[in-house]
Each structure stands twice: as structure tokens, then as C-alpha cells.
């Protein structure tokens, strides 16, 4: 019995993304970008560390995408690499500001929440549940918000 039209979640095809996540999670912890202390330093301009991490990540991403484009590198399955364009909405501004406020309070963006819990900060599960509640409330009142 399956839901009509619903895709099944297969484990094996997704293992590579699990491994990519492990790689990324280790990086987040070892770069200390999941540390509340480092986030406070960043927002008080007391350290270059976070700016160095994010800045060099962006430059690396940019160069990689440029190489993928000019060398016409394809995915593992031989597909053309596609990056979907993002459309501007005023949500980028209002939502961005709200997220920034939350980032400075929790010391975490969504990725780091998972990594923080992994390092043993078990109470962050509460923060994660609250973030899920926040997304749910956004979905609930989405039509009434300016975009």
C-alpha cells in the first residue's frame, strides 16, 4: 500500500548526500562556525575568522561554478549542471532581517543547528523544534505577508 502518486524514499541513492552532509558537518564544527561565541565575534567585528570562512567559501564556489560552465562538466548521471535562478521578493529583505536577529540569538543558522546537536548540545533540539514551528507559522500566514 503506497500513497497514490507519491514518490518512495529510497535509501541507497541518497547515501552520497548523507556522506556529503558528514563532510560538511565536520567542516562546520572544526571551523567553529557553529559556535555561539564565534557568531558573537563576527557581529561585533572582533574577529576576521567568520568573514574569512564565508568569503573564501563564496570565492571557491564561484570559481567551481565557472569551471563547471566553461569545461561543461556534467553530473555523475551525465546531466547538464543547472542552477535555478532566484527571484527577488521583499521577503529576501524582511525575512533576511528576521533570520539575522535569530542567528545572533541562537548562534546558529539551520545547518549548524544539526551540527550543534551532534556535538552534544542536546538542548539545541528545542531550538530546532522552534525553528520548525517558525517555518510552519510562515507557511500558515504566508499569503498575508508582503513579498
Amino acid at each position: 500500500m503506497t500513497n497514490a502518486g507519491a514518490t518512495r524514499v529510497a535509501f541507497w541513492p541518497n547515501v552520497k548526500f548523507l556522506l556529503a552532509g558528514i563532510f560538511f558537518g565536520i567542516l562546520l564544527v572544526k571551523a567553529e562556525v557553529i559556535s555561539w561565541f564565534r557568531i558573537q565575534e563576527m557581529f561585533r567585528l572582533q574577529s576576521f575568522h567568520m568573514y574569512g570562512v564565508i568569503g573564501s567559501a563564496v570565492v571557491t564556489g564561484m570559481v567551481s561554478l565557472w569551471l563547471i560552465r566553461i569545461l561543461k562538466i556534467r553530473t555523475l548521471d551525465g546531466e547538464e549542471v543547472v542552477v535555478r535562478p532566484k527571484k527577488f521578493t521583499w521577503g529576501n529583505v524582511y525575512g533576511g532581517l528576521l533570520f539575522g536577529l535569530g542567528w545572533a540569538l541562537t548562534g546558529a543558522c539551520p545547518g549548524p543547528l544539526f551540527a550543534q546537536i551532534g556535538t552534544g548540545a542536546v538542548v539545541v533540539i528545542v531550538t530546532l523544534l522552534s525553528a520548525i514551528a517558525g517555518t510552519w507559522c510562515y507557511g500558515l500566514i504566508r499569503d498575508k505577508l508582503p513579498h
Partner: protein
Amino acid sequence: MDFLLEILSRPWPWYVAGPLIGLTVPLLLLLGNKPFGISSNLRHVCAACIPARIPFFQYDWRKESWNLFFAGGIFIGGILAGTLLRNPEPVQMNPALTAELASYGVQDTSHLMPVELFNFHALLTLRGFILMIAGGFLVGFGTRYAGGCTSGHAIMGISSLQWPSVVATCCFMAGGFIMANLVLPYILRLL
């Protein structure tokens, strides 16, 4: 081997960790044309567990299940880095911040998170409620409203030269500056 482990256990400098984080962008694209981003997982969890007939959560989240595996991996990566590669030293930070935090009674820097602020008992205090519950809510609400988080906008979006992501990233930073400098000092004085 022990020598290698010791080096890996220290905090990694930005010029090592940053480029490796940036490589996650081509890695996910080449593994399966997936855009780097994590906050969408919060939406997928809503769609999977509590859709409640809200149109925003009516979609086939199973098609995006790679993202949940990626998040699961981040959790496992956190466990590995926090045990096998754990840094035994306290977090090194700017002395001005150490002094400021000490004035609020935050002195334990043995973990990446300040244990005096983030613990189950603190959830029952106004300060802990604001930091963890209100803060978490803002992260979840704000990222979805903004259409992405630090990974989706700041890294994936700017890497692919999308100006809406530059706008979003500037707003993330503005919100953070306002909170950390103008509001947080008052919150940390609460008990």
C-alpha cells in the same frame, strides 16, 4: 597518525575550512544537480509531519528527501567532529568579548556553545526562552520568508552571482548586527 589526529583536532583556520565549505557547492551539483541549502529541510519536515492542509506544505517532499539525508549527515558529522576530532582546548576568542560575556556571568568556554546559556534548566528562564525558543522561531520563520539561509543565499546564491541573494545576505548581517550589539546585551543581563 597521532600527530595527524592532533592537528585535525585543533580548530581549522578559515583558509582551510572556508574553501572546503565552498566545495560543497560543486559537490552537490555533480552528485545529482542539487542546490546547496539546508533551511528547506525545515519546510520538508512540516510537509511530512504537520502539513495541516496549508497550501505551502502540499507538495511531494519525498522528491526532496536528498536534503533530509544531507541534514542527517551534518548531524553525524557533528558527532564525529565532537568526539574523534574534539578540540580539548577552550574556545579562543577576542579578549574584549571574553570580558563582556564574563560581566553577564558567561565564563565557561570549554564547549562551542556557552553551557551557562544553553541548557535545559535555562529554558525555564526568560533569558533562555528568548535565546533558544524565540531565537529558533526567528531562524525558522526568517529563513523561509527570505527563501534561504546562509548556505542557500550567502554561499550558493552569491557563488552563482544572484543579486537577490546578495540582498538577503546583507539583511542577515544587518539583523545580526542589530541583535548582537543593540539588543542582546540587555537580554544577557536578564536572568
